[in-house]
């Protein structure tokens, strides 16, 4: 018995890697779908805040991430864009991260095409500018000086959706999908607190805990944390839809469920081995 428990603690890492890979691949390949339970929290707060916006509102959507965090944040981009466009809320998008522009454009054009929305009337992508927090502060006083042209090189003065947008205060809400710095904290500190604009956020699961203080103070009206947040939002957006839009977060949750269970199982095995070893040495009476 002792030998067996000792062996448990020295499982080859290649075995661990293989089991983890299978725990992700098999549920995805088998198209395993688990029901997503919606509990009141930052995800529902985010959805409710967007839902409360009147038709015709204008939202600034900032894609502050890159492809490395795409599996978690891109489903959020699709779900939020769908929600906003379905409610006839206009979207002005931009990016504080250079590679966020293309990812955002992909979400905007796909959803816009599927819902029959029109670029420059219903949405516009202003593109990327460097500067982070300083850029946000400049946008607080004059957006058109920071973004004289949009992503496609057209003058913002000629874009209908930008007609009444001159500064950050002209937006009804800001939403940042962020994978780090600059991202949600920069928007809160430089825009939300200074210009009193409601801010919603989306982030990776690993960074979600650090944003809870902002939720507690109301500086952040809602937060989508990781794939779970994206799956929550996808589920909420689907409610009442006859033909719900496809998403990648809900199928991903099945794989994540199995992967979490497998990781927990490995931790338990490691601890059984550890405690058995300790007992053998007389550490546990």
């Amino acid at each position, binding site marked *: 018995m002792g030998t067996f428990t000792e062996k448990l603690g020295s499982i080859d890492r290649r075995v*661990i890697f293989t089991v983890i890979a299978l725990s992700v691949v098999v549920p995805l390949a088998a198209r395993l779908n688990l029901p997503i339970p919606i509990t009141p929290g930052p995800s529902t707060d985010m959805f409710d805040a967007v839902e409360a916006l009147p038709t015709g509102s204008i939202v600034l959507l900032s894609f502050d991430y890159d*492809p490395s965090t795409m599996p978690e944040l891109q489903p959020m981009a699709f779900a939020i864009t769908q929600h906003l466009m379905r409610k006839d809320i206009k979207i002005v998008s931009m990016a504080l991260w250079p*590679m966020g522009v293309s*990812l955002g454009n992909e979400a905007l054009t796909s959803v816009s095409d599927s819902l029959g929305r029109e670029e420059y009337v219903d949405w516009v992508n202003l593109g990327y500018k460097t500067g982070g927090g300083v850029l946000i502060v400049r946008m607080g006083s004059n957006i058109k000086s920071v973004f004289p042209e949009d*992503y496609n090189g057209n003058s913002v003065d000629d874009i209908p959706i930008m007609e009444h947008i001159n500064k950050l205060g002209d937006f009804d809400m800001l939403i940042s999908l962020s994978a780090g710095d600059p991202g949600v904290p920069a928007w809160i500190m430089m825009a939300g607190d200074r210009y009193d604009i409601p801010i919603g956020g989306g982030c990776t699961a690993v960074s*979600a805990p650090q944003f809870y203080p902002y939720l507690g103070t109301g500086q952040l009206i809602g937060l989508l944390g990781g794939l779970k947040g994206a799956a929550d939002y996808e589920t909420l957006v689907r409610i009442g839809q006859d033909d719900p839009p496809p998403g990648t977060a809900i199928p991903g949750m099945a794989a994540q469920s199995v992967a979490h269970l497998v*990781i*927990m199982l490995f931790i338990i*095995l490691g601890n059984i081995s*550890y405690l058995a070893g300790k007992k053998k040495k007389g550490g546990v009476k």
Partner: protein
Amino acid sequence: MRLFVPLTITFVAGIIMILQFFVPATQSMGESLQEWYMIVASFAIFIGAANLLQVHVHRIRFKGRNWKYSPVTIVGFSAMILTGLILGIEKGTPFNFLFLEMVAPMSATMFSLLAFFVASAAFRAFRASNWRATLLLISAFVVMLGRVPIGAMIWPRIPLISEWIMQVPNLAGQRAVMIGAAMGMVATSLRMIFGIERSYLGGAD
């Protein structure tokens, strides 16, 4: 002189950026400095790109460590720059195709490797060695289960307990860290503005 000029620039710029919050007359100066910052930051991108090329060309020329990977970097870098500059970056262009079909999956793959290392590290290091570690372990299990649908299938209250952990103990700890970091940031900024902290000059003191 080598020290006086950068310290003076830092002092003047720092003081203006603070004053603009309180003195309306200094607001336009603050805005000008912000414009300058964005222009300088834009140039930093070109410097970064030039530096990347320089490092890899140098590595190939002198057959440095892992030099065989450098041509791949240069070819990839050139392909993205040339397709973007010549054919545009809109949807349907070669640049967009390369980005969505090559850059995006490769970056996501690299980040996904973390899952394997996290699992292996958790197996080897996450031990219930004392009551504090055991508390951490239990909290981790609850949060891990609360973040996936299977947690609610096991017991419907798990997501609620998980959310409580995030909203109460986590929030308290995060807020303490955040306030401590903010105080440290203010202190460091003041030290830089008044020339006490000079490490950002790269050892030119």
